[in-house]
């Protein structure tokens, strides 16, 4: 009996080993036919919904690029590695993509702390990396040769949109709540600086990203009595924040809430958690059905509806779609997978994507180096419909306080 057990065990281990090596051989055989680009982003953790949006955007981008002939005459392949929004996991994920999967470029990311860990690896291993949705200024401020960002940065969002919104609508007293991450603390600092300069009274609080209990912060805010709350919390935490604000009596008539990350207000779980407290909530976004920045935006919308049988909601599906188009364009113009040639091609990018025409900054010294800031929108939920309220030239309705 015991002998049989052992025999079974060994047969099992040998077959598992054979399966693994078979898979490896198949992988290396398949690899020669394609050009590989790596994507990093959270597929698990508090922002796992972003991973789903990324996955959708990747599929649409691959359809579009490969239909148009792929890159460098070969089919484009994407390998999507999970970071869980954790810097240590992110650093090993990008290292794995580069050293193991041999990707020629990496794109993506949606957490600043993770991106700040990844850029060091990308720059050390000399592989071009285009960030889609990690906003901290330092990511491009470090002026790394191989790091680009075709997406929002904190300075661009605060100075270009949030401060303008506050001034134009005449808010007088602002409370800031920020998560204790690079993005949260960075955007909080910029908002404080801007509000101070504009002479607007403010107070700020720091919260834990994964926290589900915000009553302590909310009671402090209620005492302060603001007419606008800037919530810089990315993840499900902000849902609890909005629901609990309503519970302690912070209602739109006294103070509106502007959620500064965007997608959490668009996730399916949003209405489940916040209920009616979500009405008149504001959030930052890059996408609205009535605002078409370019022809590509329209094509994206149609392709999305056709493939997933629903209209796109989370704008990060389009963000990753855009960076993949930028990457494919740069590879084709570089004419090779040589990293320095790709960087040169990227610096000369002049490409229309769904958010606009991409041109990267090339003057060293500030965060504007290798940075392209897409246009943003501030949207308000009005009776469960998205209404663009800022910038005023693309607004689809008026800001409501009740």
């Amino acid at each position, binding site marked *: 009996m015991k002998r049989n057990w*052992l025999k079974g065990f060994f047969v099992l281990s040998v077959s598992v080993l054979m399966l*693994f090596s078979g898979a490896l051989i198949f992988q290396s055989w398949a690899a020669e036919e394609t050009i590989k680009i790596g994507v990093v982003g959270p*597929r*698990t953790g508090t922002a796992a919904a972003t991973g789903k949006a990324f996955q959708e955007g990747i599929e649409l981008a691959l359809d579009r690029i490969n239909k148009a002939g792929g890159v460098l005459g070969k089919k484009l392949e994407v390998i999507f590695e*999970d970071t*869980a929004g*954790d*810097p*240590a*996991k992110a*650093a*090993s994920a990008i*290292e*794995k993509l580069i*050293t*193991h999967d041999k990707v020629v470029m990496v794109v993506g990311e949606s957490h600043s*702390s993770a991106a*700040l*860990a990844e850029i*060091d690896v990308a720059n*050390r291993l000399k592989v071009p990396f285009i960030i889609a949705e990690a906003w901290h200024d330092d990511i491009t401020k470090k002026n790394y040769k191989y790091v680009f960002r075709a997406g929002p940065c904190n300075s661009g969002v605060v100075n270009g949109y949030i401060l303008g919104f506050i001034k134009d609508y005449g808010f007088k007293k602002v409370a800031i709540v920020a998560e*204790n*991450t*690079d993005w949260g*603390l960075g955007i909080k600092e910029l908002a404080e600086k801007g509000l101070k300069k504009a002479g607007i009274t403010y107070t700020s609080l720091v919260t*834990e*990203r994964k926290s589900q209990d915000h009553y302590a912060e909310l009671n402090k805010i209620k005492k302060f009595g603001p007419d606008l709350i800037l919530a810089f919390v990315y993840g499900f935490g902000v849902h609890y924040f909005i629901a609990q604000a309503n519970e302690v009596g912070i209602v739109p008539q006294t103070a509106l809430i502007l959620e500064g990350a965007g997608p959490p207000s668009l996730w399916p779980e949003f209405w489940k958690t916040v209920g009616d407290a979500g009405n008149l909530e504001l959030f930052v976004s890059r996408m609205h059905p009535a605002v078409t920045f370019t022809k590509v935006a329209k094509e994206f919308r149609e392709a999305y509806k056709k493939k997933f049988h629903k209209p796109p909601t989370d704008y990060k599906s389009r963000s990753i779609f855009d960076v993949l188009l930028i990457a494919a364009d740069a590879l084709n113009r570089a004419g090779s997978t040589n990293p320095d040639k790709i960087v040169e091609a990227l610096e000369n990018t002049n490409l229309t994507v769904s958010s606009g025409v991409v041109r990267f900054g090339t003057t060293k010294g500030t965060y504007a180096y290798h940075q392209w800031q897409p246009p943003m929108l501030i949207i308000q939920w009005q009776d469960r419909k998205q209404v663009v309220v800022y910038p005023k030239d693309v607004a689809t309705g008026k800001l409501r306080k009740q």
Partner: protein
Amino acid sequence: MKRANLVSWCIAFVVALILPFLVSDYWLHSLISGLFYVLMASSWNLIAGYTGQVSFAHAAFAGIGCYTSGILAVKFGIPPFFGILTGIILAALLSLTLGALCIRMGGIYLSLTTLGFSEIVRIIIQNEYKITRGTMGLKVPFLFGNYSKITAFYIMLAAVVLVLVGIYFVLKSDLGLQFRAVQNDEIAAASVGVPVVFVRLTAFVMAGSLAALAGGLYGHYLLLITPHIPSLDTMFLVLAMTVIGGMGTMAGPVVGALFLEILSEYIRVYGEFHVLVFAIVAMIFARFFPQGIVGFMGNLIKQKT
């Protein structure tokens, strides 16, 4: 040590010496992580496998080691070598204090107290973001000179060899004998004059300091330390490695750590599910091979001869 054992250890050492030149950068990274876990599992084995105290504070001590050294390097520019030394001393003092408080309780009470301590350490590190940078991760300099995986590998390997040889001689000594006496029967040991509390405390402090050494070296290799090192995730992984490899043997933790590290590279595509796979593997071993891989292989060889 038996001749056959000595020969296999030497072969393993020689293979390890030439390994960095045979594998890709990616697998070298896994091997270095593997060596970190070898240090962690071997030192945890010292308390759990040889004196029978199941402590859950091991990852916390690794965290204390890497954060002490990391903060000293970042804020005061102190070279990692001295930083790690300071981390070890701090971990030794803390484990002495914690041990003095809870070592008499033993059994489940010791486990619960150390579990609490571990979470306290992690929560402090996570929330004091102004000093530790919390979940954002603290960027630290490399061990010394320019970044090189091969350098990191040999430093880790040297640490592993020193620690394993150290543990071997401790276990050979009178103290090692007392360890086992305490593990087998505390009352009997006390009746023949073994200072039970002192013996258990010594093992606890030794293990804590070695965890700090492992954490410090690993942190300066990763260049980025996060609260993941002092988390219960790391703790349970170390526990699974020791159990699967074979608790209470010299080779067990080494085999278990390398086996699970390499396995985790294969199953990382399944995301969070890899924890589930580890748990299943650990349960299968606990049920069918309670002495771990090493015990199982040992029996196999004995049957043949």
